[in-house]
Every structure is written in C-alpha cells, then in structure tokens.
C-alpha cells in the first residue's frame, strides 16, 4: 500500500442555494479542488462521489456520470461512481478514493460529496433522513432520525447524569465556530438560552440541537504521497482510513449511549496511525444532533464515557481546548448536505493542518481526525490526517 495525500481541496458555500442545482455545486466544488491542487482535468483518473439521497430528493441516480459530465470530464471517459452510506456517504467516498490510490490502481483521483436538499419541501425531509436508519422497522413505526437521537440523549441523561445544558453546549460552541467560517450556513453565534428555548423537535432535542437542511458540495484531490509535492506545497497525509458498521436499527444495539461503529473504526485508525487520541489537535465529528457529538467525543477516546457533556460545557472542545472539535461549525452551523458532509470534514481538517483556518485556526495543528457517521451509527468512517 502506498501513502496517500490530499493535494487539493474545494467546497461551495453550504446553505439554501436556491439558484444552484446539484450539477452546479458538484462542478464548483470539484473545480476549486482542481485549481487548488494545481492539476489539469486530464490528470484525474477516477471520480468518487458521496451522495446519500439524490434518488429520493431529486429523482436522480447515476451521480457518477452526472458530476463527471458537468465537470467537463465526459470526453475523458473516466470511471466515476457514487458511494452511498447514508450520512457517511462522503467519508466512505473518501475511503474508496484513498483505497484506489493506496493500492496503486490510480494515481490522481477526485473525491467529491454533494447533496441538494432544498428541492423538496421540509415535510419530506424526515422520511429521507430516516432512510439512513431502518425505514421498515423504525420509520414506519413513527420514528424520525431526530427521535432516535433523542432516545439516545434520554438514556445518556439517565445513565450518566448528562444535563440539557451539557447537550446544548454543543450547538453553542459549533455556532461560535461557524461564525468564523465564511462557507458555513450559519455564521452567527447563539446563546445557551436560544438552544434551551428553541421549539422541540424530539424531546429533549430542540431545533438548535439538529443540523439544518442544506445544499452543498465539497471535493478533495488525492495523490500518492511521493508525487504529492509536485502539485502542492502543503500536501496533507492521510495516515489512517478506517470504517465500521453496526446494526442498521438502533433498537438492536446493546447500549444507546455508545456507538460501537465509532469505537471500532477509531480504534483501528489510531492503531494504523500509531498515535493515541491525545495527539489529535483538531477533529471534525458528526454532530447531526447535538447528543451525537457528545457520544462521539467519548467513543473516539477524547473523553471518558459520560464525561462528554461536562467536557463540552467546560470548553474543552473549543478551538485550542483539549481537542478542537468542529472548528468548521460542524454539521450544525456549517450545514449538513448529507453526502457532502464527510468530504467537507476532510476539507476543513486539511485547511487546519495547512494553517489556513483563518479566524478559527487551531494553533500549531499537526494531527487531525474526521468522523463521518451514517444514520444512528450503522456506519462510521474515521480518517486521521497529518501535516507534513
């Protein structure tokens, strides 16, 4: 296996992009990554695109050919494939691209993630999101994705004494970070009071505990590390790529306060990277719901089980805290165009490790981690990155 590096990154603004179709945003993100990588389109050997739900959102499958075509690559006839793993589609696409380069199959590949969610009405979104869980035995029974995370939150409160304030401190922090990210959907800080008083979605989670409905795309260009310097002054090495699955439905898990796919994927990733959680400076984790960030920072090994809430409330995950979590604003403030999210996480980590985090830059960041999750943790993908 060869070492793999990110040589270029690009993304669109996340949010309600009324004027733009999935073709537009897929192309924009890809183009900016190509320009950033200083390569020509002909050098791209394959395209991997993370997308969760274009089939149900805009009746469009076959995203590989579509994005390749509208990125101007149709005449090059490169292989292109769409990767789907619910909310973890982007992270899984990154992993497929990584495997292709590491294996020697391809040299330069593009990994993109794109989702267009605002072409359907808000009422249709819970059904689309629930497709990342067990539609047949959770969704039809009346469960929404928010309700499943709410049941996890209730158990976390029950078992560890986690409070509503602990949970609410996640979106407060992430909005603070998002306010410093020019591509974030929400660039505005919020108070604890705003979160606590927001309308309920699934008790105890309110509107401000849930990632928004977003459009957006992100892309990275991967290359073998040994030629990466040819293109980029600051290639970012992917030191580990790991993924794990678990039961599709939350009801089959032994515990609701633990996500085993995160534990397994991160354990493997840390082992491959040869480091411990302590060495991570900056992490992008999957705060699709505020409680998910608390469980994630515990299961990734940053904090002891049950201590994720207090750690967040005490500021340990703020920028330049014990570990800087979701400097981009996370899914909550940056936005969560589902299939794009996992790739956007890699983009943010690359920027941080290159020192291009602008106002939200983490001091002297050397190691970064991204955790991209599908559904309630049916899939988790962990990547660890290092500044060279």
């Amino acid at each position, binding site marked *: 296996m060869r070492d793999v590096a990110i040589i270029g990154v690009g993304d669109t603004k996340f949010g309600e992009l009324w004027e733009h179709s999935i073709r537009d945003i897929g192309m924009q993100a890809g183009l900016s990554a190509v320009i950033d990588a200083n390569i020509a389109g002909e050098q791209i050997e394959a395209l991997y695109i993370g997308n969760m739900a274009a089939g149900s959102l805009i009746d469009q499958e076959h995203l590989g050919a579509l994005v390749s075509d509208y990125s101007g690559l149709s005449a090059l006839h490169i292989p292109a494939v769409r990767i789907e793993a619910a909310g973890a589609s982007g992270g899984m696409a990154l992993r497929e691209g990584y495997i292709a380069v590491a294996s020697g199959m391809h040299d330069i590949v593009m990994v993109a993630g794109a989702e267009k969610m605002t072409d359907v009405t808000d009422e249709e979104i819970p059904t689309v999101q*629930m497709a990342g869980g067990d539609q047949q035995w959770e969704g039809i*029974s*009346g469960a929404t994705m928010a309700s499943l995370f709410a*049941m996890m939150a209730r158990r976390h409160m029950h078992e560890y004494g986690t409070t509503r304030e602990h949970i609410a401190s996640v979106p407060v922090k992430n909005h603070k970070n998002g306010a410093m990210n020019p591509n974030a959907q929400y660039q505005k800080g919020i108070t604890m009071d705003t979160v606590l008083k927001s309308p309920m979605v699934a008790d105890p989670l309110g509107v401000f505990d849930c990632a928004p409905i977003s459009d957006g795309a992100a892309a990275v260009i991967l290359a073998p590390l040994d030629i990466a310097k040819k293109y980029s002054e600051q290639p970012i090495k992917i030191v580990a790529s790991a993924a794990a699955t678990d039961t599709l*439905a939350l*009801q089959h898990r032994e515990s609701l306060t633990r996500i085993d796919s995160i534990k397994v994927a991160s354990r493997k990733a840390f082992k491959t990277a040869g480091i411990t959680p302590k060495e991570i400076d900056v992490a992008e984790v999957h705060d699709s719901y505020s409680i998910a960030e608390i469980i994630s920072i515990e299961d990734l090994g940053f904090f002891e089980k049950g201590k994720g809430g207090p750690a967040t409330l005490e500021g340990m995950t703020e920028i330049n805290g014990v570990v800087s979590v979701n400097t981009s604003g996370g899914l909550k403030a940056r936005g969560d165009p589902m299939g794009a999210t996992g790739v956007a996480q890699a983009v943010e980590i690359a920027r941080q490790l290159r020192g291009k985090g602008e106002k939200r830059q983490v001091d002297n960041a050397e190691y970064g981690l991204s955790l991209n999750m599908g559904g309630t943790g049916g899939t988790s993908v962990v990547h660890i990155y290092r500044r060279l």
Partner: protein
Amino acid sequence: MSNPRYWRENPSRYNLIGRRCENCKGVFFPPREICPKCRRKSLGKMKAYKLTGKGKVYSFTIVHDPMPDFTLMKPYIMAMIEMEEGVRLTGQIVDCEPEKISIGMHVEATLRKLGQEGGSGIIRYGYKFRPV
C-alpha cells in the same frame, strides 16, 4: 408504494412474530434468518417465535416534527421498548399523555393504524404500545 412490501410483514406487525435461534436461544425481532451470534450454526434453526407483547420503556421521546403518517397525532410519544424476551422494539405509545411517560413504565402491544397510502391506497396496521 406497493402493497407486497407491507403485506409480507403482516405476521410480525400484527402478532409480533420474530425469530428464536434454536442454537443460542436468542430472540430476534423483526425476523432474521441468520443469528448474529451463531451465524452459520444458526442456519435453518431460526424458528418463528411470538413475543408476548409485554415490556418496559427503555427510552422515549416526544416527537414534535413527525413522519407524515403521524401528523394528526403530534406531539406523540416514540419509545424503545424492552420486551419480556429481552429484545427491543421501536414503537409509538398511545393512550398515554406525554407528561406521564417514564423509563421503566410497563407497556403492552396493541394494534393500530400505522399509516396509509393516501386516501385511495391501502391502510397499514401494526403494533404500537400502551401503558398496562
């Protein structure tokens, strides 16, 4: 959506028919044909098994932003129920005010409408839960 997708699950939705692994005695719901513990040893040994319908609330939430078929009932209680047999099911709790629900509450299964395919399509029935 077509009817067969729901029809084939009627035994489980109406009568909580799951599976029991004859190898490890583990009970599963909904039905699955391979036991995750015994895997190959469970082939052909996953027998139909009817749950009693009795259980306790393991976790719950009050849903304010519902799935489309549940709009008229919002806010409604969704819960994860730990059944007597140890297996957990996700379902709505009816005949209970949201402020009265708690972890550990005893519930039993009941049959209710789960939804319908519009005004002219089929009606789906299945289990929900209510306080005992």
